């Protein structure tokens, strides 16, 4: 248990430190490396919350694609070394972010959450989440006290079940969005008259 706490606090410190580095470091290239570090730490937090698929997606898309794109953009534009300067809004921005942070922390602490543990569902849900990543073993799920309907809903691949089932309309809309973004990115990058 203490090891889990240690890993959680280490990942949190790395994530917050990386985020601070993105905002405070003057060298834009180092800021993008800090950003990649924060992404990896958030991926580690996903693993700790039994969201292994999302952790892999986080590493592949955020670290593998977005951070690399940022490094390309930094290298292709000027003012890399002294680029990350603040504008005139520095103090108002700090005040606004501090107020938003205080409001969020107050909400998180004072809200009376109905947790899975409180509803007696923690063990079932945790098992479902870990089983849905690999190939689920129906016998294991039944032994853990899931009803046949629940075994069926998890065995058909939990996340995929929701993504292609209940959320199929947003799923298709997102594919259209990606097509539009790809065409728009090409049109913007090609420029005029070439």
């Amino acid at each position: 248990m203490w090891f889990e706490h240690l890993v959680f606090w280490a990942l949190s410190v790395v994530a917050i430190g990386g985020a601070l580095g993105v905002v405070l470091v003057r060298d834009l290239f180092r800021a993008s490396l800090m950003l990649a570090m924060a992404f990896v730490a958030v991926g580690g937090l996903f693993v700790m919350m039994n969201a292994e698929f999302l952790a892999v997606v986080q590493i592949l898309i955020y670290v593998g694609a977005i951070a690399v794109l940022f490094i390309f953009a930094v290298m292709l534009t000027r003012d890399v070394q002294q680029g990350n300067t603040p504008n005139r809004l520095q103090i108002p921005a700090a005040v606004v972010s501090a107020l938003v942070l205080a409001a969020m922390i107050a909400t998180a602490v004072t809200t009376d959450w109905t947790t899975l543990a409180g509803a007696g569902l923690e063990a079932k849900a945790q098992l479902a989440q870990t089983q849905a990543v690999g190939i689920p073993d129906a016998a294991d799920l039944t032994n853990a006290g899931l009803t046949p309907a629940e075994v069926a809903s998890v065995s058909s691949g939990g996340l995929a079940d929701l993504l292609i089932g209940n959320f199929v309309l947003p799923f298709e809309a997102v594919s259209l969005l990606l097509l539009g973004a790809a065409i728009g990115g090409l049109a913007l990058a090609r420029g005029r008259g070439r």
Partner: protein
Amino acid sequence: MTLETLLIVAAIIFCIGLYGALARRNFIAVLMSIELMFNGVNLTLVALGRYVAPYAVQEQLSAVFTGQVFAVFIITVAAAEIALGLGIVFAVFRSNESVDLTDAAALRH
């Protein structure tokens, strides 16, 4: 690791990103800060999906993945946004010879 500590860590990451998006001069730095804000939101969604019992989970156990599905959509939208955002960065850089947002005033008048 409890729900509250996860939400607080996510809120801190989000607010650092908010500060960066408001107070930076460089277009690329602003985009990086926006990505940080997306990450804070994703962390919140996954934490709520992991710990909080939604109403639907009583009937369909796979409803515990709702937060993760939302996070997948947010990651996709973030990728599309970055592709377009960096395209705009290069367009601004070509016309202005800099990526300073205080100089990019072509749409102001």
